[in-house]
């Protein structure tokens, strides 16, 4: 692939302002749901997995659309995910080491 065609692919890859706006609305809605769930008594027993799922969804939306990982070369995703996986490993290892789960 020539440099020119790579640039063209990069140019056309980014979402439109309309998509950005829709993502922002989704992010706002998820945050509102997070806060609402927090105050709902009947979901108390499942609140932690629900909040993890909701914040995970926000995280993925920002990474895929605003940080345009969905449209970029896979090498960028690999570099970022590698750091993310290592960070998650560090978090889990530290928590296990200090008996957080005990």
């Amino acid at each position, binding site marked *: 692939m020539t440099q020119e065609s790579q640039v063209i692919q990069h140019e056309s890859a980014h979402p439109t302002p309309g998509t950005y*706006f829709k993502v922002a609305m989704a992010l706002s809605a998820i945050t509102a749901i997070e806060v609402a769930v927090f105050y709902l008594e009947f979901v108390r027993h499942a609140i932690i997995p629900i909040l993890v799922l909701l914040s995970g969804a926000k*995280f993925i939306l920002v990474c895929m659309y605003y*940080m345009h990982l969905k449209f970029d070369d896979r090498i960028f995703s690999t*570099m970022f995910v590698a750091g993310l996986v*290592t960070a998650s490993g560090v978090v889990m290892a530290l*928590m296990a080491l200090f008996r957080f789960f005990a």
Partner: protein
Amino acid sequence: MWAFLGSDCMFFGSLIATYLVYKNRSLSGPLPVDVFSIPTTSVSTFVLLMSSMSMVLAYAALRRNRMKTFRIWLASTALMGMTFLAFQVFEFHAFANHEVVVDCTAPIGELTALEQSVAADCEPGQHEIEKQVGLTPRTNLFGSTFFTLTGFHGAHVTLGVVWLLSMFFLSFKKGAVTPEKELNLDLAALYWHFVDIVWIIIFTVVYLFGVFPGF
């Protein structure tokens, strides 16, 4: 930039892990349940999320060579970043000057651990007691880890705001910020969105989980 963001993930991962490990090991209050205000932090979270939207709109405007629109969105992003920082300063100040008012006649079982410690100073016949129990990095383990984590995030936001304002003022210099040099803005935008996703994690893990009993 992606390598840097990957390494910054590990940096914040370590800080979040340290916060979680020491979360329930403070010997005295205030604790998260005593000081956190979820509605206030929800608003600042919303502001930061919206700043990410204005950032991508600034980027889209630059790619279309609409310099006036680009400047408006970029300035909005920096302004929302500064608003988020103002919320953080307000929050830190409120935590450091946290006051507890306890009804001395209330059943002890209805009081939090911090309120119980304040109620212990009630004189016989006294109806209400008010005491300042501020949270600083030196107060307890929760204070140390909380201020370190959110303080470093605030420092990242501050750096982002300086970066965005630099680009805003540079855009008035002919040829400094052009659609051909979009990569410069893209790098600033990636950094800004990273700061946003770190806050998404902090808001859930530190604030929402922090107030939730039993976590």
